[in-house]
């Protein structure tokens, strides 16, 4: 049995330690390293962080990843509490615009090297800095579906033979899939009965699995559990890197391209490092590794690129999305989607 005096001393020490834990805990949050909230997975960010470290060896970068829609809600709550917990955010352009409209949370910044970026991807407000163009395409499992059987267009996914075979991101949880929703319900709305909200009503009959993120969908397709999916180029790239038995289809109607971007919080304690990150993102060095990093198409004109399946960029119809519409109509789109899916 321990001596009573010792117990008392130990208890005093424990209480002191606890007081220290309580006092120290809030201080974990800010200062020091460049903190980036990212909707892009760690494995996609790693190449960018390594490249940045070569140019800015004194800046430590920390990344915290959450699926896009969850990240938006996390940041919204932090802004309500008074301040965001990061210096920079990585989201698509429409989501950053939506957060900016609601909270004016970001500082405008024009990075050095922005003049080399294609004008059609630039954010007019100057809030978000484009990193790359992420396209929607169809990914399928080659063990389960032959190339001849794979659909060639978006409308092909409505074929009843894909019942219980499909996967799609849930717009209530995924920020990116709003680009696809816009493309089908707005951009192609006048192209006949196969498009508009009727498309999703018919797609619902094929009972696609609605997943929270495109990463889960990538693995579901690779495993054959959901052998065909509405997918983002970045995940097609990851599958190609891993040697997954999957292939890509560039649908004949075209591919909506969302602009993966970064923006700097107005309240960042680390503005200098944040600006250095934004400078780096549009630099030729970062753009050259973008296909291996974020897994999508560079935004500079002077960087060569071919898609992971060997398709040339010129062979794909890329449709730039309407970021304003997506930012403003997000809630209404989710409601309409829920209605189409009867939930």
């Amino acid at each position, binding site marked *: 049995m321990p001596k009573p*005096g010792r117990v008392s001393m130990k208890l005093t020490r424990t209480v002191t330690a606890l007081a220290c834990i309580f006092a120290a805990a809030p201080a974990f949050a800010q200062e020091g390293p460049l903190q980036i909230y990212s909707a892009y997975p760690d494995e996609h960010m790693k190449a960018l962080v390594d490249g940045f470290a070569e140019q800015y060896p004194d800046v430590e970068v920390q990344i915290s990843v959450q699926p896009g829609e969850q990240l938006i809600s996390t940041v919204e*709550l932090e802004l309500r509490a*008074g301040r965001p917990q990061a210096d920079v955010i990585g989201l698509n352009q429409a989501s950053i615009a939506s957060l900016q409209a609601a909270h004016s949370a970001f500082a405008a910044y024009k990075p050095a090297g922005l003049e080399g970026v294609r004008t059609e991807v630039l954010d007019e407000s100057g809030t978000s800095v484009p990193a790359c163009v992420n396209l929607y395409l169809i990914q399928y499992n080659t063990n389960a579906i032959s190339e001849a059987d794979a659909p060639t267009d978006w409308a092909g996914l409505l074929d009843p033979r894909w019942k219980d075979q499909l996967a799609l991101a849930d717009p209530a949880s995924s920020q990116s899939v709003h680009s696809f929703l816009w493309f089908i319900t707005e951009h192609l709305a006048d192209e006949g009965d196969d498009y508009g909200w009727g498309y999703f009503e018919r797609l619902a009959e094929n009972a696609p699995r609605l997943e929270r993120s495109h990463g*889960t969908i990538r693995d579901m397709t690779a*495993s054959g559990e959901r052998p065909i999916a509405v997918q983002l180029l970045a*995940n097609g790239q990851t599958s190609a890197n891993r040697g997954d038995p999957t292939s890509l289809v560039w649908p004949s109607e075209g591919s909506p391209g969302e602009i993966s971007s970064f923006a700097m919080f107005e309240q960042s304690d680390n503005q200098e490092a944040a600006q250095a990150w934004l400078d780096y993102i549009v630099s030729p060095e970062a753009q050259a590794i973008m296909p291996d990093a974020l897994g999508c198409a560079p935004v500079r004109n002077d960087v060569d690129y071919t898609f992971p399946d060997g398709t040339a960029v010129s062979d794909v119809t890329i449709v730039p999305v309407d970021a304003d519409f997506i930012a403003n109509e997000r809630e209404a789109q989710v409601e309409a989607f829920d209605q189409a899916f009867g939930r």
Partner: protein
Amino acid sequence: MMSAEAAATVDRASTGKMQRSGSSGWSLTAAGLSVVCLVIFIGAPVAAIFLSSVYQDGWTLEAYRDFLSSPRLLTATWNSLLVAIGIAVLSVVIGAPLAFGVARTNMQLKRIVRATMILALISPEFLLAMGYILMAGPNAGYANVALRAVFGMQSTAGPIDIFSLWGLVLTALPNGVAFVFLALTPALANMDPALEEAARLKGASALEAIRDVTLPLMRPALLAGALLAFATSLAMYGPPEMLGIDVLTVSIRNALLGLDFASASVAAVVLVLLSGIALGGQRLMLRNEDRYRTLGGKAFAPRRIDLGWATPLLTALAVFYVLIAFVLPYGTMIAVSLMKSIGNGFNIANLTLDNYRVVLSDASIRKAALLSVSLAASAATIVVAIGVIVSYVILRTRFAGRSALDYLSILPLAVPGTAIAFALIVIYLNWPGNLTGIYGTPTILLVAYLARFIPIGVRNGQTALLQISPEIEESSRVFGATEFQTLMRITLPLIMPVVIYTWLLVFILAIPELSASIILRGFSTQTISTSLLSVWNGNGGLAVACAYGVCIFVSVSLLFLIAALVGRRSALMRGFTIG
């Protein structure tokens, strides 16, 4: 063995008069501290849940009207109930025969069944869900592919669909069965065999004696186990989220994603009420246990029953349970964790240890692990301290509000983690909670963990104090020691083994905490469970997630082994709660 609560009733009555101290300085301090802690960590969050459901810019029942007119939320409520009832019923159907087999018959594999029950109880719920999804995905799940091949089925999907309500029941079943099993085995082992023997002498067969004598005697323990399984099923978040099934916990999360606080609050209220009814029922069952008590002063060992042809059936059920609850899901996870590409199957060319390398070398995973360990250690320490102080006030002082403290301290058992997290968002985003500045920092997670685990500290603290004869403390007082000195020099050293055991228990339960952590996560608050879910959801992929899951399972099991060894060193451990 006398249950903790029954012992509490007896001892409180007999020792209360002579032991309870007057209002010494220490008593008042302890009472004050208890009130402050329980109000901050428990009272305020529970009040916030109920208040926010009826107050949005003024008093209103609008949120309840919206809830009742939302098909999606009503479906979620219905799903929650169906799944919880399904789990409770099936847990009894599987758990009761296994408990009877292990406690009273000569069936095989008893030790393996006991070990599997413990493993099921300490397994984070989302790990089993991962295993089941890989195993029983309708199109490519390994079990489905094997079943289709073995039975020559022509279809390309099924026969099992994990992405269904039944699938959700299956993922949580091992845990529910373990609750029923652990509630029943002590009761069965302590039963007076004379009752069964009397029935046999009157001509009843072994099975008839079980049906007419044993089962009715076991009813309270059986119902208590089933209600606990029901309540924990209502509170689960990971599996329904991973399977994509709308239940109330997922609805709270979805409502918060859309910053719809009104819907979140009503979903939380409904969840708390349903859990409260179940746990109230469970406590009622245990309270009336004396009516069914068969333990007298005479020592006896219950007779082993030879069930004849039914014995191999019990062994077969044991094999089935061990396979379903442990071997198959964890075996599948280990297999997938060794694959380069999940699409290329289990063959030599596709084998790799890279996924483990990723897990062990990833900076964010390391950071998450460090945060989980520090949070769990801090939570365990504070829970133990609060547990001892509150128990002391309840059992050893005359503080007028001690029975209110008793009830307040167990209230969180009925409040699922998602609801606690919602309440903390409401409190710490608004005045005056926002002045603390803890929103978005690890401290808010610590507050959530305290709210979740204080009941364990207080319940174990009370049971420990009840086992210490008040005369020992009185002698110390007679020789001139103050009340505080007596607590530090006499009481605390005597209950130290329980304190250590409780610390380890809370530590183990806090490490994989998911339901509150996922809602409160921010930049510096990724824990093991939230980062694992993130890896599963694409930030790394299924194979890396499986390697991560295997690492978590091995760590938690090792920690439990240490806790069990510490616990075994102390006879005081008997009768302590595990959750």
